[in-house]
């Protein structure tokens, strides 16, 4: 059900962004960007709680009137002022998106924007998606030809993300 998946680095710039409906890419970038604030808030709040396995997974970021966002990655999209209005209207009527977040111990954030019109998407499924993302990201990190901080250009990572998006739609 993932419509958009993003990987954000520790310094809050995107390492990897992919969204399925390409024409709305800008909107997803925007939503992921705004969800970063919520991620930061959750991280700082979590520091006071007891250490827990589930702290890596942040869950539903916050519900908005049109889109729910799960912070995991950030996507950056460019909007043109004129058509954005129409696109937004269209999507409010047709879709409701949920955003999920996940932060690793190395402060890399994953954001998944999912289409909530398929209500069968459960917490476990989202968690397993994040786990797969984390595993693939770890593999990318251990690649000696990858410099930490570069954009991710691994084919294996791409195919894993495509599999997650296809399964959703």
């Amino acid at each position: 059900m993932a419509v958009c998946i993003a990987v954000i680095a520790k310094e809050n710039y995107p390492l990897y962004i992919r969204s399925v409906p390409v024409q709305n890419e800008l909107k997803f970038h925007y939503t992921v960007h705004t969800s970063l604030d919520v991620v930061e808030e959750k991280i700082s709040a979590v520091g006071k709680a007891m250490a827990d396995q589930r702290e890596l997974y942040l869950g539903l970021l916050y519900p908005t009137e049109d889109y729910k966002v799960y912070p995991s990655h950030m996507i950056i999209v460019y909007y043109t002022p004129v058509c954005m209005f129409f696109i937004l209207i269209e999507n409010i009527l047709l879709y409701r998106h949920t955003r999920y977040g996940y932060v690793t111990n190395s402060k890399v954030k994953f954001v998944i924007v999912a289409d909530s019109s398929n209500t069968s998407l459960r917490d476990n499924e989202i968690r397993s998606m994040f786990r797969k993302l984390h595993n693939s990201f770890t593999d990318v990190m251990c690649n000696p030809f990858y410099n930490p901080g570069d954009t991710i250009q691994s084919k294996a990572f791409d195919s894993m993300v495509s599999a997650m998006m296809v399964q959703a739609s």
Partner: protein
Amino acid sequence: MADEALFQFLHNEVIQYIYKSSEHGEMENGRCITKLENMGFRVGQGLIERFTKDTARFKDELDVMKFICKDFWTCVFKKQIDNLRTNHQGIYVLQDNKFRLLTQLSAGKQYLEHAPKVRKRNGGKLTCQALFIPGQLSPHEWFSLPLSLQYLAFTCGLVRGGLSNLGVKSIVTAEVSVMPACKFQVMIQKM
């Protein structure tokens, strides 16, 4: 059990290779230790990403250091750090009484005999940090360095890389008093 020996052989060969390249004057002498340390840094970053995949979030710096001493050291060297000391102001000393990478070198004073030459010049304990400044040591001194410090550079980088990926900027130095015991000193840098 065999995989430990593999890394030890590789590690020794890497040091020999860098040592030999410096003999031919291909690079400045202070750079050899820096090269080893930077190699360790990148490896440390990747290793930490893999080891912290399923662990809970870290509460504070001390938690991070404890993780390094227990889980990280166990995964890499199959044993824990024997002693962790701190002054609670950003300096940690990790003591390993039987450092895996040094056990194959002969225990005792054989290699430490070369140390006095360099110690007199620096007027104190010789640490890896002094060697990071290029040009500090003449070629003669580099070759007469206690070999044990060359063997610790990679591990210093390993610790620094792991800490950096967890968000802790640091400087890691090492010292050897009696082989195979060694101490790693971590100085946390406040941003």
